């Protein structure tokens, strides 16, 4: 009953990090959802006692290193959206998948905005409207990712029941 879910969480997050770094053609790059943010949102919602702002901070820093952004740029954005998830997780859990996807889309937009805001302050902001596309693709992918991660959680983390 008390199998520790840490391994499953770390592995899914590292896989998400790899998906974020996977080489893609240029057009697909504009569509790539932020897998790390999506997986973090899921775990923060499903197991809020284990995955929270600290995990978000650490993986944010890893994202910053892997994308050569300012150290703390993604960390800040992820800490903010994950703390929102922590406030609202009970509500999100009872949403339908479509409602959840919309909410996730909003969270990802906030994250993109935070990153863009910092980029703007140091004059490295991209000047294209395609910038928010990953939030949309993230929302579209959410229902499938949710089901996949729920199965993983049920198999490896018999720890809470929903």
């Amino acid at each position: 009953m008390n199998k520790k879910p840490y391994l499953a969480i770390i592995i899914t997050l590292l896989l998400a990090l790899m998906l974020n770094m996977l080489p893609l053609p240029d057009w697909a790059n504009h569509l790539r959802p932020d897998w790390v943010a999506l997986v973090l949102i899921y775990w923060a919602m499903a197991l809020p006692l284990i995955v929270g702002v600290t995990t978000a901070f650490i993986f944010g820093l890893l994202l910053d290193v892997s994308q050569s952004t300012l150290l703390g740029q993604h960390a800040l954005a992820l800490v903010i959206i994950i703390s929102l998830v922590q406030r609202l997780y009970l509500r999100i859990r009872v949403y339908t998948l479509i409602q959840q996807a919309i909410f996730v889309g909003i969270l990802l937009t906030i994250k993109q905005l935070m990153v863009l805001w910092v980029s703007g302050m140091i004059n490295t902001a991209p000047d294209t409207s395609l910038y928010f596309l990953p939030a949309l693709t993230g929302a579209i992918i959410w229902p499938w990712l949710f089901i996949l991660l729920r199965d993983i959680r049920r198999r490896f983390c018999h720890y809470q029941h929903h």
Partner: protein
Amino acid sequence: MVEMNALFQNRASLIVRAIILTALSVALMIADHRWNHLETLRHALSNVIYPLKYTINIPAEFVQWIDQSVTSHNKLVQDNEQLKSDQLLYEARLQKMDTLELENQRLRKLLGTPKKASERVLIAEIFSVEQDPYKRLISINKDADDGAYIGQAIIDANGIMGQIVHVTSNASTVMLISDSNHAVPIQINRTGLRGTVFGTGDSSKLELRFIPHNADIKVGDIVSSSGLGGRFPPNYPVGIINKIERPAGETFAHIEITPSAKLEQSREVLMLWHNAPTDTFGLEGKNKTKGKDKK
């Protein structure tokens, strides 16, 4: 039970933790931006990133390896012959170059402006391309142990590619000249006109900015580095002027440049020790009398 705890016990501490981490991120960003003190932290975290990047590249490397190992004997022999004849050709050209260089140096000595001896170079391999669509960054497989340093110039066979912006363990990040945050001081070979070439974020074009309408500039002019910023060695090709517009009512002309270096295609690049910090290389340092005004 766990749920209840989550509800009542942790609320306040959660907010405190979120606030602390937010403040910490902001502090990190400021430290990183203002003082560049965080290269060690970046270095440490890159130890986690490197194996992941490496794993991602395994399939591509594998395909390449298969491709190389099933090359036929005939093809190899053919390639070998081709390369040998190329080698001969280049050597012949190089002989001429050598005499020319000596002559050049002798003439410069006569003029009283001795030119530095040639730079030390090392071949590095590109092992990944950053996946942020709004940046032009690549990773190469050389780190501080090989002598890589921040600000080091990177070229390929055709021209200047970019400069190193981060040195981590086992790899260094290179910002290409096409990145929209990059600029190279240049001069036009034909006229000696100086200027600055900016990246546009598009690897097929660069921009020469702040050149007035009446400047003597033609499509087809070769643009090469001037070496003025201290980052890049002088006289390496940067690109060729490809389009000039002189919109009425604007102070400066719009000049588009096609980069000489194959920014998207190269697999191997050359690292140049042009302005290396002297303490890293005792030997090289002795040859460098000038050219370290930066770093």
